[in-house]
């Protein structure tokens, strides 16, 4: 009896231990067991109170939202400390950004990173960043980037390793100054890397040129450009001609589009001069609509050094303040939409291509993509005179992109941080080579300024300017960019000069929301292929105009109200149309439409009408386009924007003679969409808009314990207070800057700390969802949380 019990116990013991040691459970236990599991190190490792620095003295004080005020005795001491702080708070995110841009994602995440790596290797963003570094290395900016990189490295060595590295069991890459420039390339790519030309060509090929022209107009008919007054705002249909030589198939366009930013990337900003404000001082607002990530895309920080007092946000990995304010002024950016990319086809035998009268060899390199847990892949990186040649599914397209050149943007941002008034800020903005941005500026002297940044190439064929809405014939030397030097330093004198770019000195008030900047006739060069729909731009101008015409001056509360505004101009346009066709609807749909009659078009969380309208727009889009697009093999990436959808007239071909599916009146289509919308609402179990419109901000690993909590919020893809739930895009930072002696305000959708163990991982998210702000105030009192002391033999 005793013996058999012992045998059983021995079997249980050895079986239990053996199973844990020999099964996949061992990997989990190694990482997540208490006390010994590396994963938990991030929860118990605290930043040292004292850090030895080769760059001199600095200090860090965190406020109650974990926003650091970093003060250095010198610029280098500051940059080192900033690197240490970023390396402590956002190391995983920084590594992920850089791996993506370098094409080394699969080495960390496995198979799912392979296609991304293939694309990014082919684009060779790394070589572009290296060219940038070559141009910056011996400058003050280069010195800051070097010190920053050392700070990141020392923070990593000191044990501040993010738990994500343990989750996937890999090590962060060593950080270098090139990586900071890769972050800049990533942001630039997200804002200007558009494959619209390829998509339009593929859509024209699939649907017919006429249909495509109607769906993807180059210009939208409205009267709310950034620079007013302006003339000639008729819509301009795209004249894409899809010849077999100048198109790609939808599969290629879809593949390439995967590496664009998601739908909805845009931004709002406006400045109001003291002429219109209660205090007599300017006001500035900015909220860039970028991907909403956990942790957030932005890192809030205050920086102080001799001659420097600046606060705002930076991208993790960037040692300066990108958007914010200093002791002289404040600045913000929205995407200008300048066309910074062109595409080329070649006469080629595979290894060589014709370029005018010459035959040239592609610059070819075979690289290996390391794949964690999988088979390594080889990728051919091919370049022509224009830059990278993307190659997939048996098709090749040459790409010219402004961001592939060395640029001065990092130096320009640094100069903005140090700028002492408008003249210096403008000098910095003129050197902001990439991307094209609507920069707004206001300062304590009462100046207001608008300026469009970024190099704008002139496109020429045989010395003649050419329109740019098609794939160029690279072999015929069409669409050349004088001065362009991919992976090198451009001849900037060949690009559109600063004085010819859109700008406005001392506007009374001015609003930018990615809409058309100015009438094309007012420019002597081609600027943009297309601009965003003017829903937000029109609304902001309406509010500013209304207030300016009233007896009430604009004040801080007013600009805050504008930034929180949730009136949906799509609803203002289309609800009357819906109401007009109620006779076509069944009883349930008619009752729902009746609820829209008294609605104020506000996308409030407690509104039933807002919920119905949001679902209606999606259903209407499906009713109009799904059949034809499915038949043509085009997915939702090819759908036109809501401006086009909601402006389709009753006699549009999409109702009377669609490319596929049965003809049906617009009224019947609207009625069917209303029924579909109500079905979808009921199926989801939603009662009010806030049941649907909830924050949906996820960690790249998409694990419930890393994703942000879901909070109801207000706004829509078309409102000033911007949130696009479907693609997790929205106001990534809200800044309200003032110059009347009171404190500016800001908020980010999440938290400053990247560690999911931290109380500050998502502590600003609720405020963001509720439209609340935090004071943008540096922390200068109290003992430092971290002190950097000069190390013996250091530079200091």
């Amino acid at each position, binding site marked *: 009896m005793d013996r058999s019990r012992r045998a059983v116990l021995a079997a249980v013991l050895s079986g239990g231990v053996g199973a844990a040691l020999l099964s996949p459970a061992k990997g989990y236990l190694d990482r997540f067991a208490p006390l*010994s599991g590396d994963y938990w190190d991030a*929860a*118990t490792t605290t930043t040292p109170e004292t850090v030895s620095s080769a760059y001199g003295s600095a200090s860090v004080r965190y406020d109650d939202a974990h926003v650091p005020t970093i003060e250095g005795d010198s610029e280098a001491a500051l940059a080192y400390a900033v690197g240490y702080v970023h390396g402590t708070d956002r190391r995983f995110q920084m590594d992920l950004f850089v791996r993506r841009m370098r094409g080394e994602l699969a080495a960390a995440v496995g198979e799912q990173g392979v296609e991304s790596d293939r694309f990014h290797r082919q684009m060779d963003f790394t070589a572009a960043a290296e060219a940038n570094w070559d141009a910056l290395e011996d400058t003050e900016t280069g010195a800051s980037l070097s010190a920053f990189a050392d700070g990141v490295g020392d923070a990593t060595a000191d044990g501040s390793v993010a738990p994500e590295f343990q989750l996937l069991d890999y090590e962060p890459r060593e950080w270098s100054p090139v990586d900071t420039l890769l972050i800049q390339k990533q942001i630039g790519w997200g804002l200007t890397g558009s494959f619209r030309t390829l998509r339009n060509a593929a859509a024209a090929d699939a649907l017919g040129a006429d249909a495509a022209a109607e769906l993807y107009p180059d210009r939208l008919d409205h009267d709310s450009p950034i620079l007013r007054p302006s003339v000639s705002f008729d819509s301009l249909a795209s004249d894409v001609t899809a010849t077999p030589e100048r198109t790609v198939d939808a599969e290629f366009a879809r593949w390439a589009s995967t590496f664009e930013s998601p739908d909805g990337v845009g931004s709002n900003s406006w400045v109001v001069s003291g002429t219109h404000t209660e205090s007599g001082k300017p006001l500035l607002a900015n909220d860039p609509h970028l991907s909403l990530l956990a942790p957030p895309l932005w890192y809030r920080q205050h920086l102080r050094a001799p001659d420097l007092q600046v606060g705002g946000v930076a991208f993790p990995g960037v040692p300066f303040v990108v958007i914010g304010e200093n002791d002289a002024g404040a600045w913000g950016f929205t995407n200008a939409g300048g066309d910074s990319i062109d595409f080329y086809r070649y006469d080629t035998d595979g290894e060589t291509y014709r370029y005018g009268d010459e035959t040239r060899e592609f610059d070819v390199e075979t690289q290996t993509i390391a794949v964690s847990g999988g088979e390594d892949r080889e990728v051919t990186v091919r370049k022509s005179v224009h830059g990278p040649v993307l190659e997939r599914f048996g098709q090749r397209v040459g790409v010219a992109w402004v961001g592939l050149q060395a640029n001065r943007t990092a130096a320009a941002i640094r100069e903005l941080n140090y700028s002492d008034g408008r003249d210096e800020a403008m000098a910095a903005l003129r050197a902001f080579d990439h991307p094209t941005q609507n920069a707004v500026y206001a300062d304590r002297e009462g100046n207001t300024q608008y300026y469009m940044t970024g190099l704008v190439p002139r496109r020429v064929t045989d010395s003649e300017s050419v329109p740019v809405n098609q794939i160029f014939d690279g072999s015929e030397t069409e669409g050349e960019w004088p001065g362009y030097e991919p992976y090198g330093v451009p001849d900037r004198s060949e690009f559109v000069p600063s004085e010819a770019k859109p700008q406005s000195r001392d506007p009374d008030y001015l609003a930018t929301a990615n809409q058309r900047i100015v009438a094309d006739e007012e420019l002597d060069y081609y600027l943009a292929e297309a601009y965003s729909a003017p829903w937000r731009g029109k609304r902001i101008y309406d509010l500013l105009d209304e207030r300016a015409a009233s007896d009430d001056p604009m004040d801080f509360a007013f600009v805050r109200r504008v930034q929180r505004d949730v009136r949906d101009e799509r609803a203002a346009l289309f609800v009357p149309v819906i109401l007009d066709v109620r006779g076509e609807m069944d009883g349930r749909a008619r009752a729902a439409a009746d609820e829209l009659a008294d609605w104020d078009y506000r996308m409030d969380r407690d509104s039933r009408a807002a919920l119905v309208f949001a679902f209606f727009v999606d259903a209407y889009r499906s009713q109009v386009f799904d059949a034809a697009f499915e038949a043509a093999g085009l997915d939702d990436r090819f759908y036109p924007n809501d401006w086009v959808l909601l402006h389709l007239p009753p006699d549009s071909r999409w109702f009377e003679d669609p490319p596929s599916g049965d003809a049906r009146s617009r009224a019947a289509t609207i009625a069917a969409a209303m029924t579909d919308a109500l079905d979808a609402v009921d199926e989801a179990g939603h009662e009010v808009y806030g049941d649907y419109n909830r924050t949906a901000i996820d960690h790249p690993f998409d694990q419930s314990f890393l994703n942000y909590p879901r909070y109801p919020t207000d706004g829509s893809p078309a409102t000033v207070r911007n949130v696009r739930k479907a693609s997790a895009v929205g106001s990534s930072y809200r800044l309200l800057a003032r110059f009347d002696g009171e404190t500016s305000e800001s908020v980010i959708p999440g938290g400053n700390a990247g560690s999911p163990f*931290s109380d500050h991982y998502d502590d600003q998210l609720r405020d963001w969802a509720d439209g609340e702000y935090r004071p943008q105030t540096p922390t200068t009192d109290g003992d430092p949380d971290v002190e950097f002391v000069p190390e013996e033999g250091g530079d200091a």
Partner: protein
Amino acid sequence: MRSPLATLWAVQRSARQRRAATVGAVLVGLGLGSVHWLGFVVGGALVGVCWPSLRSAIAAGFGFGVVAVAVFLARFALVGTLDGALGMGPLIAIAVVTPLVAGSLGAAVRGLLPAGESE
């Protein structure tokens, strides 16, 4: 001179000695568990052999696991990350269950030893 087994039985019989030995075993087990998760199995075994019966040994091994979990969570509480750690879903579950199971499993070693005089 008493054999090691006789000494162990003496420890098991004496409440005072058993308590002291158990505390020592817990400390050793925590030390080993801090190096590798197998340390919780060894710790459980050390704790288990201090007790006079298999049943009490397994209960003590489980108790050792509870202590290990408490120490684990206390470290988070000390640096202010307890809420974050408790929000880690399946990962914190692995961490909590590991010493409870390992401690109990290790304590089963007690059943492999000859029964003491009190048994």
